[in-house]
Protein backbone atom coordinates (compact mmCIF):
# COMPACT_ATOMS: atom_id res chain seq x y z
CA UNK A 1 0.00 0.00 0.00
CA UNK A 2 1.41 3.36 -0.97
CA UNK A 3 0.96 6.05 1.63
CA UNK A 4 1.16 9.69 0.67
CA UNK A 5 4.05 11.49 2.28
CA UNK A 6 2.53 14.91 1.84
CA UNK A 7 -0.70 16.32 3.10
CA UNK A 8 -3.68 16.57 0.80
CA UNK A 9 -5.13 20.05 0.31
CA UNK A 10 -7.67 19.68 3.05
CA UNK A 11 -5.10 18.52 5.60
CA UNK A 12 -2.60 21.21 4.64
CA UNK A 13 -5.32 23.81 5.18
CA UNK A 14 -6.22 22.34 8.57
CA UNK A 15 -2.57 22.38 9.61
CA UNK A 16 -2.16 26.01 8.54
CA UNK A 17 -5.24 26.99 10.51
CA UNK A 18 -3.99 25.05 13.53
CA UNK A 19 -0.68 26.91 13.23
CA UNK A 20 -2.63 30.14 13.48
CA UNK A 21 -4.23 28.89 16.70
CA UNK A 22 -7.51 27.56 15.30
CA UNK A 23 -8.48 24.82 17.75
CA UNK A 24 -11.48 23.75 15.68
CA UNK A 25 -9.24 22.89 12.77
CA UNK A 26 -6.91 21.06 15.11
CA UNK A 27 -9.91 19.15 16.48
CA UNK A 28 -10.55 17.74 13.01
CA UNK A 29 -6.95 16.50 12.92
CA UNK A 30 -7.39 14.96 16.37
CA UNK A 31 -10.47 13.07 15.17
CA UNK A 32 -8.57 11.91 12.14
CA UNK A 33 -5.52 10.53 13.94
CA UNK A 34 -6.70 9.71 17.45
CA UNK A 35 -7.03 5.97 16.92
CA UNK A 36 -3.58 5.64 15.38
CA UNK A 37 -1.92 7.82 18.02
CA UNK A 38 -3.49 5.74 20.79
CA UNK A 39 -2.25 2.65 18.94
CA UNK A 40 1.32 3.96 18.81
CA UNK A 41 1.26 4.77 22.52
CA UNK A 42 -0.22 1.32 23.18
CA UNK A 43 2.55 -0.33 21.23
CA UNK A 44 5.10 1.20 23.56
CA UNK A 45 3.41 1.15 26.98
CA UNK A 46 1.11 -1.83 26.45
CA UNK A 47 -1.62 -0.45 28.66
CA UNK A 48 -4.78 1.13 27.31
CA UNK A 49 -5.49 3.55 30.11
CA UNK A 50 -1.96 4.89 30.04
CA UNK A 51 -2.04 4.96 26.24
CA UNK A 52 -5.18 7.12 26.20
CA UNK A 53 -3.65 9.57 28.66
CA UNK A 54 -0.40 9.69 26.69
CA UNK A 55 -2.31 10.16 23.44
CA UNK A 56 -4.02 13.22 24.91
CA UNK A 57 -0.67 14.56 25.97
CA UNK A 58 0.61 13.89 22.46
CA UNK A 59 -2.06 16.06 20.87
CA UNK A 60 -1.60 18.86 23.39
CA UNK A 61 2.12 18.91 22.69
CA UNK A 62 1.48 18.68 18.96
CA UNK A 63 -0.77 21.74 19.12
CA UNK A 64 1.85 23.65 21.08
CA UNK A 65 4.50 22.79 18.51
CA UNK A 66 2.51 22.70 15.30
CA UNK A 67 4.19 25.96 14.25
CA UNK A 68 7.46 24.04 14.00
CA UNK A 69 5.97 21.33 11.79
CA UNK A 70 7.41 21.49 8.30
CA UNK A 71 5.02 20.51 5.54
CA UNK A 72 7.74 18.62 3.72
CA UNK A 73 7.26 15.62 6.00
CA UNK A 74 4.15 13.63 6.79
CA UNK A 75 1.95 15.10 9.53
CA UNK A 76 0.88 11.63 10.66
CA UNK A 77 4.47 10.42 11.09
CA UNK A 78 5.31 13.64 12.94
CA UNK A 79 2.41 12.95 15.31
CA UNK A 80 3.37 9.31 15.82
CA UNK A 81 6.93 10.33 16.64
CA UNK A 82 5.68 12.68 19.34
CA UNK A 83 3.46 9.89 20.67
CA UNK A 84 6.34 7.40 20.70
CA UNK A 85 8.68 9.86 22.44
CA UNK A 86 6.13 10.65 25.12
CA UNK A 87 5.36 6.96 25.61
CA UNK A 88 9.05 6.03 25.77
CA UNK A 89 9.68 8.78 28.36
CA UNK A 90 6.69 7.55 30.33
CA UNK A 91 7.97 3.99 30.22
CA UNK A 92 11.39 5.11 31.45
CA UNK A 93 9.78 6.90 34.38
CA UNK A 94 7.66 3.83 35.09
CA UNK A 95 10.74 1.65 35.01
CA UNK A 96 12.14 3.68 37.90
CA UNK A 97 8.88 2.99 39.77
CA UNK A 98 7.97 -0.39 38.35
CA UNK A 99 4.32 -1.31 38.23
CA UNK A 100 3.03 -4.72 39.11
CA UNK A 101 3.83 -7.33 36.52
CA UNK A 102 2.76 -10.82 35.62
CA UNK A 103 0.32 -12.77 37.73
CA UNK A 104 -0.02 -10.12 40.41
CA UNK A 105 -0.98 -7.55 37.80
CA UNK A 106 -3.50 -9.91 36.19
CA UNK A 107 -5.25 -10.51 39.51
CA UNK A 108 -5.29 -6.80 40.29
CA UNK A 109 -6.63 -5.98 36.83
CA UNK A 110 -9.55 -8.37 37.22
CA UNK A 111 -10.38 -6.84 40.58
CA UNK A 112 -10.43 -3.27 39.35
CA UNK A 113 -13.63 -2.17 37.61
CA UNK A 114 -11.77 0.16 35.23
CA UNK A 115 -13.96 2.05 32.78
CA UNK A 116 -11.38 1.86 30.07
CA UNK A 117 -9.96 -1.50 30.94
CA UNK A 118 -6.97 -2.92 29.26
CA UNK A 119 -6.05 -3.26 25.60
CA UNK A 120 -7.04 -6.84 25.67
CA UNK A 121 -9.99 -6.56 28.01
CA UNK A 122 -12.55 -7.68 25.47
CA UNK A 123 -10.65 -10.78 24.62
CA UNK A 124 -9.04 -11.28 27.96
CA UNK A 125 -11.40 -14.06 28.92
CA UNK A 126 -10.12 -16.17 26.11
CA UNK A 127 -7.07 -18.24 26.63
CA UNK A 128 -5.58 -17.08 23.36
CA UNK A 129 -5.65 -13.41 24.30
CA UNK A 130 -4.00 -14.16 27.61
CA UNK A 131 -1.36 -16.20 25.89
CA UNK A 132 -0.66 -13.43 23.40
CA UNK A 133 -0.48 -10.84 26.11
CA UNK A 134 1.91 -12.98 28.08
CA UNK A 135 4.04 -13.51 25.00
CA UNK A 136 4.17 -9.79 24.24
CA UNK A 137 5.17 -9.10 27.83
CA UNK A 138 8.19 -11.30 27.34
CA UNK A 139 9.48 -9.10 24.55
CA UNK A 140 11.63 -6.08 25.25
CA UNK A 141 9.71 -2.79 24.86
CA UNK A 142 11.65 -2.06 21.66
CA UNK A 143 10.73 -5.39 20.06
CA UNK A 144 7.15 -5.15 21.25
CA UNK A 145 6.75 -1.63 19.89
CA UNK A 146 8.16 -2.64 16.51
CA UNK A 147 5.92 -5.69 16.08
CA UNK A 148 2.76 -3.89 17.25
CA UNK A 149 3.42 -0.84 15.09
CA UNK A 150 3.82 -3.13 12.11
CA UNK A 151 1.15 -5.75 12.68
CA UNK A 152 -1.55 -3.79 14.48
CA UNK A 153 -0.99 -0.22 13.32
CA UNK A 154 0.19 -1.18 9.83
CA UNK A 155 3.10 1.27 9.73
CA UNK A 156 5.71 0.80 7.03
CA UNK A 157 9.32 0.08 7.94
CA UNK A 158 10.29 3.65 7.10
CA UNK A 159 7.53 4.98 9.32
CA UNK A 160 8.54 2.70 12.19
CA UNK A 161 12.14 3.82 11.71
CA UNK A 162 11.01 7.44 11.86
CA UNK A 163 8.70 6.95 14.83
CA UNK A 164 11.12 4.91 16.94
CA UNK A 165 14.10 6.89 15.66
CA UNK A 166 16.25 3.96 14.70
CA UNK A 167 17.68 2.83 11.35
CA UNK A 168 15.55 0.82 8.95
CA UNK A 169 17.91 -2.14 9.36
CA UNK A 170 17.27 -2.09 13.10
CA UNK A 171 13.53 -2.16 12.45
CA UNK A 172 13.99 -5.24 10.25
CA UNK A 173 16.09 -7.05 12.83
CA UNK A 174 13.73 -6.15 15.70
CA UNK A 175 10.77 -7.44 13.72
CA UNK A 176 12.60 -10.61 12.82
CA UNK A 177 13.52 -11.24 16.44
CA UNK A 178 10.02 -10.41 17.72
CA UNK A 179 8.33 -12.69 15.19
CA UNK A 180 10.63 -15.60 15.93
CA UNK A 181 10.24 -15.13 19.65
CA UNK A 182 6.45 -14.97 19.43
CA UNK A 183 6.40 -17.95 17.11
CA UNK A 184 8.45 -19.94 19.61
CA UNK A 185 6.24 -18.99 22.57
CA UNK A 186 2.98 -19.41 20.68
CA UNK A 187 4.13 -22.42 18.72
CA UNK A 188 1.08 -24.53 19.44
CA UNK A 189 -1.33 -21.72 18.54
CA UNK A 190 0.53 -20.60 15.44
CA UNK A 191 0.68 -24.09 14.00
CA UNK A 192 -3.01 -24.93 14.60
Amino acid at each position, binding site marked *: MIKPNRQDGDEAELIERAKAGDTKAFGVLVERYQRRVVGVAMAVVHDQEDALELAQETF*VRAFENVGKFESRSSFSTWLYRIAANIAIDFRRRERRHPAMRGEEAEIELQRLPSKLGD*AFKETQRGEMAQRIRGALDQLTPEHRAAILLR*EVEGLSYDEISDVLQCPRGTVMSRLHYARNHLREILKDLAED
Partner: protein
Amino acid sequence: MTQCDDIAQLLGAFQDGELPPHTMREVARHLAGCNRCEQAAESYSTIGQMLRNAASTPALDGFASAVLARIESVRPSPLTRFGRWLDVRRERFGLVTAMAFAMAAAILTIVIASPFAHKMIDAGNHAARLAARDAHAVAQQAANAPAALASAAGNEPGAIISKLETSNPDVAVWSEPTQGTTVIWLPDQQP
Protein backbone atom coordinates in the same frame (compact mmCIF):
# COMPACT_ATOMS: atom_id res chain seq x y z
CA MET B 1 24.54 -21.14 6.56
CA THR B 2 21.97 -22.88 4.37
CA GLN B 3 19.80 -21.09 1.90
CA CYS B 4 16.83 -21.67 4.22
CA ASP B 5 18.64 -19.79 7.01
CA ASP B 6 19.24 -16.87 4.66
CA ILE B 7 15.64 -16.87 3.51
CA ALA B 8 14.34 -17.12 7.09
CA GLN B 9 15.93 -13.75 7.85
CA LEU B 10 13.87 -12.23 5.05
CA LEU B 11 10.52 -13.93 5.50
CA GLY B 12 8.90 -11.22 7.61
CA ALA B 13 10.04 -8.42 5.35
CA PHE B 14 8.92 -10.49 2.35
CA GLN B 15 5.41 -10.76 3.77
CA ASP B 16 5.43 -7.07 4.55
CA GLY B 17 6.44 -6.29 0.96
CA GLU B 18 9.46 -4.36 2.23
CA LEU B 19 12.20 -6.07 0.18
CA PRO B 20 13.65 -4.83 -3.10
CA PRO B 21 11.90 -6.39 -6.14
CA HIS B 22 14.69 -8.77 -7.07
CA THR B 23 14.89 -10.10 -3.47
CA MET B 24 11.11 -10.47 -3.39
CA ARG B 25 11.34 -12.66 -6.51
CA GLU B 26 14.16 -14.69 -5.02
CA VAL B 27 12.25 -15.40 -1.78
CA ALA B 28 9.06 -16.23 -3.69
CA ARG B 29 10.99 -18.69 -5.85
CA HIS B 30 12.44 -20.36 -2.75
CA LEU B 31 9.10 -20.61 -0.99
CA ALA B 32 7.55 -22.30 -4.02
CA GLY B 33 9.98 -25.18 -3.55
CA CYS B 34 10.55 -25.28 0.24
CA ASN B 35 7.82 -26.60 2.46
CA ARG B 36 9.63 -25.74 5.69
CA CYS B 37 10.10 -22.07 4.84
CA GLU B 38 6.58 -21.85 3.51
CA GLN B 39 5.26 -23.10 6.87
CA ALA B 40 7.43 -20.60 8.70
CA ALA B 41 6.01 -17.82 6.54
CA GLU B 42 2.49 -19.00 7.28
CA SER B 43 3.17 -19.02 11.01
CA TYR B 44 4.36 -15.40 10.77
CA SER B 45 1.07 -14.53 9.08
CA THR B 46 -0.89 -16.33 11.77
CA ILE B 47 0.94 -14.48 14.53
CA GLY B 48 0.23 -11.14 12.83
CA GLN B 49 -3.44 -12.07 12.59
CA MET B 50 -3.57 -13.09 16.25
CA LEU B 51 -2.01 -9.80 17.32
CA ARG B 52 -4.58 -7.84 15.32
CA ASN B 53 -7.47 -9.90 16.72
CA ALA B 54 -6.25 -9.51 20.29
CA ALA B 55 -5.82 -5.74 20.07
CA SER B 56 -9.20 -4.24 20.84
CA THR B 57 -10.03 -0.79 19.62
CA PRO B 58 -10.32 1.54 22.60
CA ALA B 59 -13.45 3.59 23.08
CA LEU B 60 -12.61 7.05 21.84
CA ASP B 61 -15.93 8.80 22.46
CA GLY B 62 -15.24 12.26 23.73
CA PHE B 63 -11.51 11.88 23.22
CA ALA B 64 -11.18 14.83 20.81
CA SER B 65 -13.24 17.15 23.00
CA ALA B 66 -11.17 16.15 26.04
CA VAL B 67 -8.02 17.02 24.08
CA LEU B 68 -9.42 20.40 23.06
CA ALA B 69 -10.49 21.18 26.62
CA ARG B 70 -6.99 20.36 27.78
CA ILE B 71 -5.50 22.57 25.07
CA GLU B 72 -7.72 25.45 26.18
CA SER B 73 -6.59 24.99 29.78
CA VAL B 74 -2.93 25.25 28.81
CA ARG B 75 -3.46 27.82 26.07
CA PRO B 76 -0.21 29.68 25.40
CA SER B 77 0.24 33.32 26.25
CA PRO B 78 -0.64 35.96 23.63
CA LEU B 79 3.09 36.46 23.09
CA THR B 80 3.57 32.79 22.20
CA ARG B 81 0.57 32.92 19.93
CA PHE B 82 1.96 36.00 18.26
CA GLY B 83 5.26 34.11 17.77
CA ARG B 84 3.37 31.25 16.20
CA TRP B 85 1.50 33.66 13.96
CA LEU B 86 4.83 35.15 12.93
CA ASP B 87 6.25 31.69 12.21
CA VAL B 88 3.40 30.93 9.85
CA ARG B 89 3.96 34.14 7.92
CA ARG B 90 7.71 33.65 7.85
CA GLU B 91 7.19 30.22 6.34
CA ARG B 92 4.75 31.59 3.81
CA PHE B 93 6.27 34.91 2.85
CA GLY B 94 9.89 34.91 4.00
CA LEU B 95 11.67 36.62 6.86
CA VAL B 96 11.65 40.22 5.58
CA THR B 97 7.97 40.25 4.77
CA ALA B 98 7.20 38.55 8.06
CA MET B 99 9.15 41.25 9.90
CA ALA B 100 7.23 43.93 8.00
CA PHE B 101 3.98 42.19 9.00
CA ALA B 102 5.19 42.08 12.58
CA MET B 103 6.15 45.76 12.67
CA ALA B 104 2.87 46.82 11.10
CA ALA B 105 0.99 44.65 13.58
CA ALA B 106 3.00 46.02 16.50
CA ILE B 107 2.38 49.64 15.46
CA LEU B 108 -1.30 48.98 14.97
CA THR B 109 -1.49 47.28 18.34
CA ILE B 110 0.19 50.21 20.07
CA VAL B 111 -2.04 52.74 18.34
CA ILE B 112 -5.24 50.85 19.01
CA ALA B 113 -4.60 49.30 22.38
CA SER B 114 -2.24 51.58 24.28
CA PRO B 115 -3.86 53.91 26.88
CA PHE B 116 -0.81 56.15 26.56
CA ALA B 117 -1.42 56.36 22.84
CA HIS B 118 -5.02 57.29 23.52
CA LYS B 119 -3.81 60.10 25.80
CA MET B 120 -1.37 61.23 23.16
CA ILE B 121 -4.06 61.25 20.55
CA ASP B 122 -6.42 63.16 22.85
CA ALA B 123 -3.67 65.67 23.66
CA GLY B 124 -2.94 66.09 19.97
CA ASN B 125 -6.58 66.65 19.20
CA HIS B 126 -6.85 69.17 22.04
CA ALA B 127 -3.78 71.09 20.78
CA ALA B 128 -5.19 71.13 17.29
CA ARG B 129 -8.48 72.47 18.58
CA LEU B 130 -6.68 75.21 20.54
CA ALA B 131 -4.57 76.15 17.53
CA ALA B 132 -7.63 76.35 15.37
CA ARG B 133 -9.38 78.51 17.93
CA ASP B 134 -6.34 80.84 18.23
CA ALA B 135 -6.03 81.11 14.49
CA HIS B 136 -9.68 81.99 14.31
CA ALA B 137 -9.27 84.63 17.05
CA VAL B 138 -6.22 86.15 15.35
CA ALA B 139 -8.06 86.36 12.08
CA GLN B 140 -10.97 88.04 13.80
CA GLN B 141 -8.68 90.60 15.46
CA ALA B 142 -6.81 91.23 12.24
CA ALA B 143 -10.07 91.92 10.55
CA ASN B 144 -11.04 94.44 13.27
CA ALA B 145 -7.57 95.92 13.64
CA PRO B 146 -7.23 98.93 11.32
CA ALA B 147 -9.16 101.51 13.36
CA ALA B 148 -7.82 100.49 16.75
CA LEU B 149 -4.31 100.05 15.51
CA ALA B 150 -4.23 103.34 13.73
CA SER B 151 -4.99 105.21 16.91
CA ALA B 152 -2.51 103.11 18.91
CA ALA B 153 0.23 103.79 16.41
CA GLY B 154 -0.46 107.46 16.57
CA ASN B 155 -1.11 107.49 12.85
CA GLU B 156 2.59 106.92 12.23
CA PRO B 157 2.99 106.25 8.55
CA GLY B 158 4.37 102.81 7.56
CA ALA B 159 3.52 101.12 10.84
CA ILE B 160 1.50 98.00 10.39
CA ILE B 161 0.04 96.80 13.59
CA SER B 162 -1.71 93.51 13.28
CA LYS B 163 -2.56 92.95 16.89
CA LEU B 164 -3.02 95.17 19.90
CA GLU B 165 -2.77 93.03 22.99
CA THR B 166 -3.45 95.23 25.98
CA SER B 167 -6.29 97.14 27.43
CA ASN B 168 -3.97 99.36 29.47
CA PRO B 169 -3.98 102.80 27.81
CA ASP B 170 -0.45 103.51 29.08
CA VAL B 171 1.10 100.49 27.41
CA ALA B 172 0.79 99.27 23.88
CA VAL B 173 1.96 95.91 22.62
CA TRP B 174 2.49 95.44 18.95
CA SER B 175 2.66 91.90 17.87
CA GLU B 176 3.20 90.47 14.42
CA PRO B 177 2.31 86.80 14.69
CA THR B 178 3.41 85.85 11.22
CA GLN B 179 6.94 87.09 11.89
CA GLY B 180 7.10 86.25 15.58
CA THR B 181 7.87 89.90 16.44
CA THR B 182 6.58 91.73 19.49
CA VAL B 183 7.15 95.43 20.29
CA ILE B 184 6.13 97.00 23.58
CA TRP B 185 5.37 100.73 23.61
CA LEU B 186 5.73 102.86 26.68
CA PRO B 187 4.72 106.51 26.20
CA ASP B 188 7.27 109.15 27.32
CA GLN B 189 6.79 109.94 30.98
CA GLN B 190 6.49 113.62 31.85
CA PRO B 191 8.50 114.69 34.94
